[in-house]
């Protein structure tokens, strides 16, 4: 059998992307299109007393200005899938009234014949505000914190008796770790092009959830879902910012209706800082206790993060802590403070990214307190099972990750004494941490078609946000079809296709791979039955299970020369194509099974066909309630710190990841590396500054919000365990987009402590904190 899964093939969309041929959402030009530019509020709270558009209207070429006074009414989103393309701020539908809840809120859209005119006119919109007092500083408003009602019981977790164990503990470590507001800053700004044809709406939108945005637009605009189509063929990164739906596609659709021609609306980089989400600031208090030999007796992880006055979002920093180590007494809590800022939303590894920073830095501190090697401490407290859920892990090879990572970074050369190692003038430090992220899977569907010319096609309404989904789905499909990769085309990013997973929670690979595989296998199954029942076929009368389909040919297991090509069967039968749909109703999320989304009959055909699809049935019959699904890994870094200037250079970074089966070594490495680089930003560079006087973002561009650049790169060594997870799916692959950022931030901070003897608990570790 020609193995395609696992091969490090080049990206199938590579040629388009290197030649400028991949079309992102802002790159469509429907006839008579005009340009929309948003106007945002400049106060953090209050009301618009008056909005004067007269000057802006006088700019020639302006075709419309939409404010709360003249915009169409929207419906509150209903019955849409909260997990896919959720509207980000449920109590703040755009342009419906004059209330201002935060600085940078959408208050008007100006449409004009050219971008220049729209941008110019937008600056002429005059707003008179009635300002009310606002709060925007998390630390100053801790007294207003509350326990969120959303998110359910899993946000407040408890096992054993942490307080009692703390009283009697031999060794105690208690510290507070903070992370600032971070912004995703995907390179492609949020963009939409909306076009109405009668009551039919077409939107090109930069989104991580075409299917979700379609349902959302239909619901908010009061249209039947079949009247809305959303397309997103190429997305210039999302990292969570395009996972929830922000006002921009909705306003674009409203504007196109109002001016009666297609509208293109792209956020400016500055606007992305207030109207496209962010990661919440966190204050995390960790308490660890152990006996004198290092066995953990208490873990407490209390997180305070921000929410807004128009929705609720919890940065679930403590969730991973509940299962990370073996410990009898554990308490996890999450609280929120509502502030006059845009609502936070998922950001690459929501929860786990800041959470593993805090817990893994704390573990390092405890190791030093115990005078114990930090790897040793982790091995001593290794969790053989998820002690919170009392379930086995679906797969976990973390010990091997620690071992291989330590070898790769040269851990044995490390003198554990802080500030003891030098290279020239630089202080040298080594640090490590555990990485982990949920191994999510949700219900998904796909359609497979084999054509008489011998090529095959897959359709699924999921999308490739840059992760490599097109490529690995092509590999999965090619293997199931028994075709070479170049004969398979995977089409994604179109809401007309069977509904696939939204690109969030590292779930697309695990969720969409199985129905693609099952649908392709079903097509080949049909083809084989055609052959064996056809007297003209060399396979006539043979048992189906004795036939192998590979490389475009079907043949007998033991007589490889006895067979025929796919095209021969189809042509003889006069068939243009063979099709099959499959839907796998599988979820690893809690509570399991409940988020099999009602798709309003859209995937009814796929569901019906799947009842007799053996691949789907076998997959759905695995009892996943028995297992806790997570990915794991170990991160190791070596840093160089200039003792005089306090500058930190990550010199080498090693990740050994246990993410199940690796589908494509090349794209997998890139995903992990991208996550690790995000963590370099998180640890050393990034952080959004707000003006303490008026709650406005100060660092609202890429010259002031610093993300890692090429000169910040260490030498990377990225490795995989590459053992399939036997329970997640027949393919055995878990998601990979987010785990790379987890643990890495702590590994850097721990290495800085080792290099300098200074423990910085407030991210980012800028040079002023080290000198």
């Amino acid at each position: 059998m020609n193995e395609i899964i696992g091969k490090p093939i080049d990206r199938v969309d590579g040629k388009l992307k290197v030649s400028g041929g991949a079309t992102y959402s802002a790159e469509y030009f429907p006839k008579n299109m005009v340009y929309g530019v948003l106007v945002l509020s400049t106060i953090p709270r209050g009301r618009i007393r008056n909005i004067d558009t007269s000057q802006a209207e006088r700019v020639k070429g302006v075709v419309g200005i939409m404010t709360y006074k003249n915009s169409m009414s929207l419906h509150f989103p209903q019955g849409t899938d909260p997990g896919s393309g959720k509207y980000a701020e449920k109590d703040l539908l755009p342009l419906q009234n004059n209330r201002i809840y935060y600085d940078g809120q959408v208050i008007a859209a100006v449409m004009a014949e050219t971008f220049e005119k729209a941008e110019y006119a937008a600056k002429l919109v005059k707003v008179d505000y009635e300002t009310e007092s606002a709060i925007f500083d998390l630390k100053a408003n801790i007294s207003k914190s509350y326990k969120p009602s959303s998110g359910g019981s899993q946000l407040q977790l408890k096992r054993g008796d942490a307080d009692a164990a703390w009283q009697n503990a031999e060794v105690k470590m208690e510290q507070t770790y903070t992370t600032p507001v971070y912004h995703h800053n995907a390179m492609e700004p949020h963009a939409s092009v909306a076009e109405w044809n009668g009551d039919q709406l077409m939107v090109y939108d930069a989104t991580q959830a075409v299917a979700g945005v379609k349902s959302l637009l239909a619901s908010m605009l009061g249209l039947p879902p079949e009247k809305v189509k959303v397309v997103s063929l190429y997305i210039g990164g999302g990292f969570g910012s395009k996972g929830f739906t922000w006002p921009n596609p909705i306003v674009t659709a409203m504007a196109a209706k109002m001016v009666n021609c297609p509208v293109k609306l792209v956020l400016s980089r500055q606007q992305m800082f207030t109207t496209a989400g962010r990661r919440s600031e966190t204050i995390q208090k960790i308490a660890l206790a152990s006996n004198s030999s290092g066995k953990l007796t208490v873990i407490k992880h209390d997180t305070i993060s921000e929410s807004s006055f128009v929705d609720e979002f919890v940065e679930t920093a403590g969730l991973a802590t509940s299962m990370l180590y073996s410990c009898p007494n554990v308490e996890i809590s999450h609280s929120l403070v509502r502030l006059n800022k845009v609502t936070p939303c998922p950001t690459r590894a929501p929860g786990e990214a800041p959470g593993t920073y805090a817990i893994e830095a704390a573990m390092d501190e405890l190791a030093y307190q115990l005078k114990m090697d930090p790897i040793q401490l982790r091995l001593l407290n290794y969790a053989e099972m998820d002690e919170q859920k009392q379930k086995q892990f679906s797969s976990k090879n973390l010990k091997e990750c620690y071992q291989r990572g330590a070898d790769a970074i040269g851990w044995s050369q490390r003198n554990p004494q802080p500030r003891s190692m030098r290279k020239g003038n630089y202080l040298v430090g080594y640090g490590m941490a555990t990485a982990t992220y949920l191994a999510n899977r949700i219900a998904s569907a796909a359609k497979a078609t084999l054509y008489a010319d011998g090529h095959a096609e897959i359709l699924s309404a999921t999308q490739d946000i840059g992760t490599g989904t097109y490529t690995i789905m092509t590999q999965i499909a090619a293997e199931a079809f028994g075709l070479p990769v170049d004969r398979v085309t995977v089409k994604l990013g179109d809401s007309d296709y069977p509904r696939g997973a939204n690109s969030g929670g590292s779930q697309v690979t695990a969720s969409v791979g199985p129905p693609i595989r099952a649908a392709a296998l079903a097509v080949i199954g049909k083809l084989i039955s055609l052959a064996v029942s056809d007297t003209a076929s060399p396979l006539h009368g043979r048992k189906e299970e004795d036939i192998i389909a590979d490389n475009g040919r079907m043949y007998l297991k033991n007589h490889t020369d006895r067979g025929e090509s796919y095209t021969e069967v189809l042509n003889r039968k006069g068939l243009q194509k063979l099709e099959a749909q499959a839907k796998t109703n599988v979820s690893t999320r809690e509570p399991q099974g409940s988020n099999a989304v009602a798709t309003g009959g859209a995937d009814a055909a796929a569901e019906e066909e799947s009842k007799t699809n053996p691949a789907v049935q076998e997959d759905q019959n695995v009892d996943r309630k028995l297992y806790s699904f997570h990915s794991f890994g170990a991160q190791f870094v070596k840093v160089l710190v200039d003792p005089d200037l306090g500058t930190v250079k990550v010199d080498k970074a090693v990740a050994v990841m246990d993410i199940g089966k690796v589908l494509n070594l090349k794209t997998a490495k890139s995903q992990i590396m991208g996550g690790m680089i995000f963590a370099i930003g998180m640890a050393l560079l990034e952080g959004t500054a707000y003006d303490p006087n008026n709650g406005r973002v100060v660092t609202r561009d890429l010259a002031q919000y610093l993300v890692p650049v090429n000169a910040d790169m260490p030498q990377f060594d990225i490795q995989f365990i590459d053992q399939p997870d036997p329970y997640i799916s027949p393919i055995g692959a878990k998601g990979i987009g987010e785990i790379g950022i987890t643990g890495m931030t702590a590994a850097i901070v721990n290495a800085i402590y080792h290099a300098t003897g200074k423990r910085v608990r407030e991210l980012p570790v800028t040079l002023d904190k080290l000198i």
Partner: protein
Amino acid sequence: MGNNLGISNTDDEEPSSNGTTRRDFLAQITYAGAGLTLVPLLAGTKDILPQAPPPNAETATINLTVNGQKHALNIDERTTLLDALRENLQMTGTKKGCDHGQCGACTVLINGRRVNSCLTFAAMCQGKEIITIEGLAKGDRLHPMQEAFIKHDAFQCGYCTPGQICSAVGLVNEGHVHNDADIHELMSGNICRCGAYQNIVDAIKEVQNIA
């Protein structure tokens, strides 16, 4: 093509007395440098922005040579080269990431040098040789830098990629690269949020023939 390809000669916006233009304001931001020094500026945004429209924005006929092809565009004088390429010529291979010269996504080659097209008015480019990502391949044969980017997986989402590739081609032409560190440094004007940096360096090394 739609009406976005340039509006015919009209005397657009009214004259202004003494307003500060958007670009002046941007320049002030840029000069202000580090974040917190901006506070007074941002706090006073309302006062700096034009109270009345600035002087007329004219349309003009601008001749551009892009990838060897000549184009005459009747466009707003304020149009940047980036917007002229993307919106007027509908050559969307060149990307807009920030519109402020801070990300490199819009990098094109002008007379062989790499330039941020968002910081360049189209009107400044008349008579110059502009090469964009669409102009690097020879027919169906990709430029060696494009091939190397694919081979080394030097992109993920692909949005920074046209700028990275143009920048990389410019870099090689400049002839200042002697080692890895030079590449890391001299490619630092091109941000890749997906984090393909190491692979970009590997791709450039292959084309440069540095071991």
